[in-house]
């Protein structure tokens, strides 16, 4: 081996080994567990019973997992739509040049930095039926008549966690789209206005097409990050009421660490992984096309 290779591996291998042991091996181990019978009784056994796809079949027979998949998709798509629309609007606004633009745009990023545990508690507080400020504001503006018990009813519970999640995701969308916008040459807009294109036309024919790569990566990354959300749900609702906000991540956790059905927990985690894997491939194809690597 030449010196170049030798030094290269010397620098890279420690981190790579670390990741392989703590992430690579567990991924494979997880697949194995999901095909065995592993619970509190059998966890110490060396030769656990192999059940093939039995755990997966049991999950789908039970049916709750289908409901949970639907929840996860609903949560993900709704969060993304809200945070994308608001994030895009903010990105366009803060792309205008004025004195405080950069400073305030940076300040908004803080909601993305706040520990999710705190965000979860804060929104739980703000959405509480007896003294939540959000109910008070909605009543003040005559949008509702009496306080909503956000986390008591199944429908509103889901919207409660979506609102909190969108608040975290908006800066992420805003910053990435804003960066995309700043790369569009100003001359394009100038010559288009000379040709008589109005604001709306310029947006459709210049901004959107030029921003396409940024839009795509924001949406795909948004999907990946939102689909696996755990902390927020666990702290706000723990999946309740009656599974209304149960997502694949929290369901997997509950199976493994509340009722100690490790094999079904692992199977649900693999279902979650399968969704992410497909979308990640899309993302990789996208960035590969855009150079980067």
């Amino acid at each position, binding site marked *: 081996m030449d010196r170049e290779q030798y030094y*290269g591996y010397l*620098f*890279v291998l420690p981190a790579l080994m670390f990741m392989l042991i703590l992430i690579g091996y567990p991924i494979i181990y997880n697949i194995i567990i999901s095909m065995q019978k592993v619970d509190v009784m059998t966890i110490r056994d060396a030769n656990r019973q192999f059940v093939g796809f039995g755990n997966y079949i049991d999950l789908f027979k039970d049916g709750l997992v289908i409901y949970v998949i639907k929840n996860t998709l609903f949560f993900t798509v709704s969060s993304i739509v809200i945070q994308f629309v608001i994030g895009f609007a903010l990105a366009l606004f803060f792309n205008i040049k004025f004195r405080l633009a950069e400073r305030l745009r940076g300040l908004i990023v803080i909601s993305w930095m706040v*520990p999710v*545990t705190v965000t979860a508690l*804060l929104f739980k507080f*703000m959405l509480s039926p007896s*003294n939540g400020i959000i109910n008070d504001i909605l009543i003040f503006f005559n949008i509702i008549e009496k306080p909503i018990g956000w986390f008591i009813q199944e429908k509103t519970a889901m919207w409660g966690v979506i609102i909190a999640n969108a*608040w975290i995701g908006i800066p992420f969308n805003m910053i990435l789209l804003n960066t995309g916008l700043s790369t569009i040459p100003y001359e394009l807009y100038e010559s288009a206005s000379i040709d008589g294109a109005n604001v709306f036309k310029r947006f459709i024919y210049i901004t959107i097409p030029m921003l396409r790569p940024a839009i795509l990566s924001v949406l795909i990354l948004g999907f990946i990050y939102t689909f696996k959300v755990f902390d927020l749900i666990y702290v706000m609702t723990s999946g309740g009421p009656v599974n209304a906000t149960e997502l694949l991540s929290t369901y997997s956790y509950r199976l493994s660490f509340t009722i100690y059905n490790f094999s079904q927990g692992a199977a649900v985690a693999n279902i979650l992984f399968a969704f992410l894997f497909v979308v990640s491939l899309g993302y990789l194809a996208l960035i590969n096309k855009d150079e980067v690597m």
Partner: protein
Amino acid sequence: MKVLRLSGRRRSIFLNVTAIIISCIFLFPLYWLIISSLKTNAEIFQSPQTLFPSQIQFTAYYDQLFGPNSIIGPFLNSLIIATSSMIVSMLLGVPAAYGLARFKIKGGKLFILTFLITQMLPATLVLTPLFLIYKGLGFLNTFLAPIFSDSTIAIPFIVLILRPYFLSLPKDLEDSAKIDGCNTFTAFVRIMLPLSYPGLITAISFAFLFAWNDLIYAMTFMNIAEMRPLTAGIYHFMDMYGTEWNKIMAYGMFLVAPVIIIFVFLQKYIVSGLISGSVKG
């Protein structure tokens, strides 16, 4: 869009004021966190609600610090876990980023791809196997379990964010350092690292924050109350406090404070980390 046709000064005032209003609305939840932690619980349940405490009270903070179940323990646990994880992930991640940028090694592209993919994985996926592995190694209920697990989040991020920095440094620098008597390692430590300090600041702050914010690993791998960091602690306190929201919000303030401090001083680096960490993957 009549607005944009407003001229000079009025346009500028209009835009700045609008931006301030938008920011205030968006950041209102944080204002509410601070304000509620300074109210008495009686005032919190008052109707209509007060937008500012009628009397600023620090009792919630006092109770958290000096009452039973003092927050000092969990705070120190969080600090130990986050700092150690930051050190572990920097020690492993920074050289890896350099190795992938500077040397043409076989499988280099594949390694980059591996780091990229691990960054997207959900913690839930590795949670059950890690639990069983740590159980076998005797790591459960030690700080090692969350420290190692949190590092698996930070390392890929560090590698992906620092590699472009190292790529942009001219190779001649290393050659001339070698003429001056440096070897590959001393050139890396004495010449290349100081030159890439903006990237290092981004990497180090995120490595700390990933671990500081972690709930799932700490909560799953540590059962002993005395060992819990702030995130896992607050989850357990919730049942105890019930609706003592001022105390819960004060607790939240302790968890948010270091984040705000890091953010205020390093905002530039944080935003650039957010951009390059995700756009370039």
